[in-house]
């Protein structure tokens, strides 16, 4: 079952590999085409792993190359923003408020008279940090809980699935408003913590579904017959194969977390100064959209490009991992 939309501005892509029902069906179809099982076989008939196969595809995919380059660049300036921006993002002179582009300040100034270019460059760090850390948290928590539920089944599955449903039922933006409105810390951790708390059910469901599918594979059954321990089966046999859909969804979700941070700022509960973030700048600039659109354009553009890069990367990885689309 495809996952429900998070919220405006923070939707999560349906994957078509969401739940057990859907997976069971797609497995049936792919069996027809690839008798060797759901893992594809290489063009020369020599069996290759899913991953090396996917890598082979990705290297030739221009979408993947472009988005990977963009992400590489973002990561680079997140670590060393001073590489391309010499100023201090907190240097603001109200006398220059809302002024447009001028020499040395290509993007102009924002409502407080801070340099938009410098702030946009420095904002990358926060957005990338929020996106990457929230995704990591969600992926780890989600796949552990979902994986355990799928692997052990029965009562454990029922219990964990109900817990998942409980967290799933709370609208995300609503939860953010409630939880973050009383936060006093001005670091990124509360925002990341909230995203993990309400985001994990999505990946948990996917992990559960793919573990259930992987569990039924012949080689897992064989390992079980040979007396392999639970932990060995999970780690050596099931996890590597069940991970693919998790990674795909996580990459796409990463973009939506970055976007969600901006939405939270718009509602007044996002990150707090002196943290420099695109979300903070976009939401302040959105008030002045009529008089100084350049203040909105640059941070919003940077955010859109970043989200786009992660979603495209996720798309490309999905295409590469999905044997049906070859």
């Amino acid at each position, binding site marked *: 079952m495809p996952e429900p939309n998070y919220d405006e501005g923070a939707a999560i892509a349906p994957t078509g590999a969401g739940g057990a029902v859907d997976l069971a069906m797609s497995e049936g179809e792919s069996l027809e085409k690839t008798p060797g099982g759901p893992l594809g076989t290489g063009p020369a008939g020599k069996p290759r792993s899913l991953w090396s196969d996917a890598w082979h595809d990705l290297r030739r995919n221009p979408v993947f190359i472009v988005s990977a380059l963009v992400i590489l660049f973002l990561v680079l300036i997140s670590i060393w923003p001073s590489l391309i921006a010499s100023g*201090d993002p*907190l*240097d*603001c*002179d*109200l*006398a220059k*408020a*809302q002024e447009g582009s001028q020499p040395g300040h290509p993007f102009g100034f924002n*409502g*407080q*008279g*801070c340099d938009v270019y410098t702030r946009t460059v420095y904002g990358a760090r926060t957005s990338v940090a929020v996106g990457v850390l929230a995704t990591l948290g969600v992926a780890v928590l989600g796949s552990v809980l979902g994986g355990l539920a799928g692997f052990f089944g029965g009562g454990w599955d029922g219990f964990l699935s109900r817990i998942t449903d409980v967290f799933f039922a709370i609208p995300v933006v609503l939860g953010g*408003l409630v939880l*973050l*409105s*009383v*936060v*006093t810390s*001005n670091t990124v951790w509360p925002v990341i913590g909230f995203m993990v708390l309400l985001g994990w059910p999505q990946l948990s469901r996917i992990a559960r579904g793919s573990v259930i599918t992987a569990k039924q594979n012949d080689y897992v059954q064989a390992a079980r017959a040979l007396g392999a321990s639970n932990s060995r089966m999970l780690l050596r046999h099931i996890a590597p194969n069940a991970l693919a859909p998790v990674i795909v969804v996580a990459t796409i979700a990463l973009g939506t977390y970055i976007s969600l941070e901006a939405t939270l700022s718009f509602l*007044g*509960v996002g990150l*707090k*100064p*002196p943290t420099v973030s695109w979300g903070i700048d976009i939401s*302040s600039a959105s*008030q*002045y959209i*009529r*008089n100084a659109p350049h203040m909105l354009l640059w941070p919003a553009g940077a955010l859109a490009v970043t989200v786009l890069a992660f979603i495209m990367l996720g798309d490309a990885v999905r295409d590469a991992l999905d044997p049906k689309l070859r």
Partner: protein
Amino acid sequence: MRGATHAKWAALALAVALTATACGGGDDSGGSGADGIVSSSWGDPQNPLEPANTNEVQGGKVLAMIFRGLKQYDPKTGEAKDMLAERIETTDSTNFRITLKSGWTFSNGEKVTAKSFVDAWNYGAHLKNNQKNAFFFGQIEGYDQVHPEEGQAKAETMSGLKVVDDRTFTVKLSQKFSLWPETLGYAAFAPLPKAFFDDHDAWLSKPVGNGPYTVDSYAKGSQMALKRWDGYPGEDKAQNGGVTLKVYTDNNTAYTDLTAGNLDLVDDVPASQLKNVEADLGDRYINVPAGIIQTLSIPFYDKAWDTPDGDKLRKGISRAINREQITETIFQKTRTPAVDWTSPVLGEEGGFKNICGDFCSYDAAEAKKLVAEGGGIPGGTMRISYNADTGSHKEWVDAVCNSINNALGNNRACVGNPVGTFADYRNQVTTQKMTGPFRAGWQMDYPLIQNFLQPLYYTNASSNDGKWSNPEFDKLVDQANAEPDTQKAVEIFQRAEEVLRDDMGAIPLWYQNGSAGYSERVSNVALNPFSVPVYNEIKVN
């Protein structure tokens, strides 16, 4: 079969849509001339609309239309003029004898008598009625019996209130307060009809008062339609057919709706639209002084902020704030740099005077020196707290911090600290959790210098959030309240204000103007000194 299922779904969806639209619809193109209806922006009042329970502007707007009290503040000068009161007499500033004019009734026909006032005030003061403005009756003798600090009430009514006859009642205060009659224009002192006590729920869903308007319909959370009351006995009759107050989710949206011609009056133009307001509205934009002052309160309960040299630190911070530039750039001159702790609407006679002087003017070098002499910013960084949910405070707090940072040459000296909700913000303020300066806005209840000083800076006063305390200040305020001569009282209050300045008990920022915009459909629009539109004078073209 599947096709049939789809068709069923579609039909169901259509049916739901049709029922949903059926209850909507309705157009309010209000007519024109003397019977024309004015549509005005509104915010959902957060408390029930009882006079003594309404402490914010949105509810106050309605009360100003449907009630008239003993006094009424002149919409232009703010002077307290007799309305229902024929005379208020006293010889000792403690015992007052109030005589009502005859001929006043509530809109349901009931006569307004001395009892209407006494019952209303007793209701407002009594603990069991949970009225948030009960403290307004705190000066009346016997208040502590009906509203003790804790525990149950010991009396049903205040001993200081006595009905003499239909048109006369007497009030005894617990201590001298010569300017007390001037406070009686505040909404909490309005009279209440019997219907209020007999069927409270019905009254709340459709309040009945004695003002120039009556409530025609009230859909909580979306809109209230007020109609002119043709039988209104007062002189300030409504010049229009009625007012429809529409609740907006956001004041930006209300403004946008005004520019699109769907709304007649917006009484709070958002800061972000001020730059284009002249282009949008031309001369249909009002920007007039109002009795509102913004200050930065200091947490004196925090040791780091209450040091022997702390006054130098606070004066230094004050001098590091470029009020001129911020009011001009961020507020487009809808704020005026503050030069004292009161408001220009008081006028020089009422006590407005440049008392702050140099301490309120920007000088980066002086500021840096003073802060250093005062021991530097506590902890190296100070966080200015504000609530982020309403009022676009972020812009000016950031600007104040940037100004301080630039003056001190340290980009980490000051940083804004948004608090998610107003409720949580107030919670942190009242439980004394603030660790740095915090936003404080004061809107006067009545145009007296006393109202700008006593509730805010008197030891343990109801709004003394910073817990500043100075025995000399308290002594001067007591002395001023007992002084029967108004002019002399004002002078003593000003001396108290100088004490406040010498210790910089709070940093004054700017006076807030009332700003409003209106459509081409209406004219003669004005804001009173409380920044509330004078609805009854608006004419529909």
